[in-house]
């Protein structure tokens, strides 16, 4: 199985990157790739729970991510949140959607070295 790591570095709503990243994560899962998403820098906000962006006309991206984890039982993506980025922004795992996991710099380095293709958003 081909592997892909999608790194998200931008927060949702201000720019399109996080939304596009979510679209590519979903696509990779549907196409049966071994999919890992890493939320880094402002990208950690993608997994922030209780987003209420509906009034903007844009869907809640965290809900999209949560739904993806729920529906892709056979080939679920791994969703990792970079611990240092989260800490720098005053966030904790309790602020995040369930199903995501915290990773350190060293774990991130290993994921990158073990993955065939990396996409950065």
């Amino acid at each position, binding site marked *: 199985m081909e592997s892909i790591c999608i790194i998200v570095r931008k927060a949702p709503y201000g720019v399109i*990157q996080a939304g*596009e990243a979510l679209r590519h994560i979903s696509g990779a899962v549907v196409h049966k*790739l071994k999919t890992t998403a890493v939320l880094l820098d402002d990208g950690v906000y993608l997994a922030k729970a209780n987003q209420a962006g509906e009034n903007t006309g844009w869907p809640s991206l965290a809900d999209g991510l949560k739904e993806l984890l729920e529906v892709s039982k056979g080939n679920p993506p791994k969703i990792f949140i970079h611990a240092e980025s989260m800490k720098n922004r005053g966030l904790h795992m309790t602020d995040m959607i369930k199903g995501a996991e915290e990773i350190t710099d060293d774990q991130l380095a290993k994921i990158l070295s073990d993955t065939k293709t990396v996409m950065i958003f």
Partner: protein
Amino acid sequence: MPVLKNKNFLRGVKLEIGVSQGNIEKKNKTLTIFLFTSPYGFENSSTAARLAEAALDKGYSVNMFASSDGVYNFMAGQKAVAIPNIQQEFEKLINKGLKVYLCGPCLNFRGIQRQNLIENSKPSSLTELFAIMGQSNVFLCFSF
């Protein structure tokens, strides 16, 4: 062994093998560039084009997959002067063998139709993107 005494024959054989092996090695390498930004607002398009040209010149297969605002790079009728005109850059590279794929939904979202696109750039899909990725030796992302 009259054949081995014929130096010209041997030289020809060696050359043929050398070229053949070189071609096989180069043809096996594929570079895919994922271009996410529009032209002129960012330098990504020019950098991606220069990298693509260098790889094509070395005999690599090169794919360019444009997504999101990156699809604007492949619109026909661009009038940029005094700076690199990205339409002309990509048309030159397409003639050199660059394969161009454009995210279909991104084109639809932006109301861009086929007749607005430069020749030999075609709407594509995530299915094709992941297939191209699987065939690529190197995959580079140009975003912001």
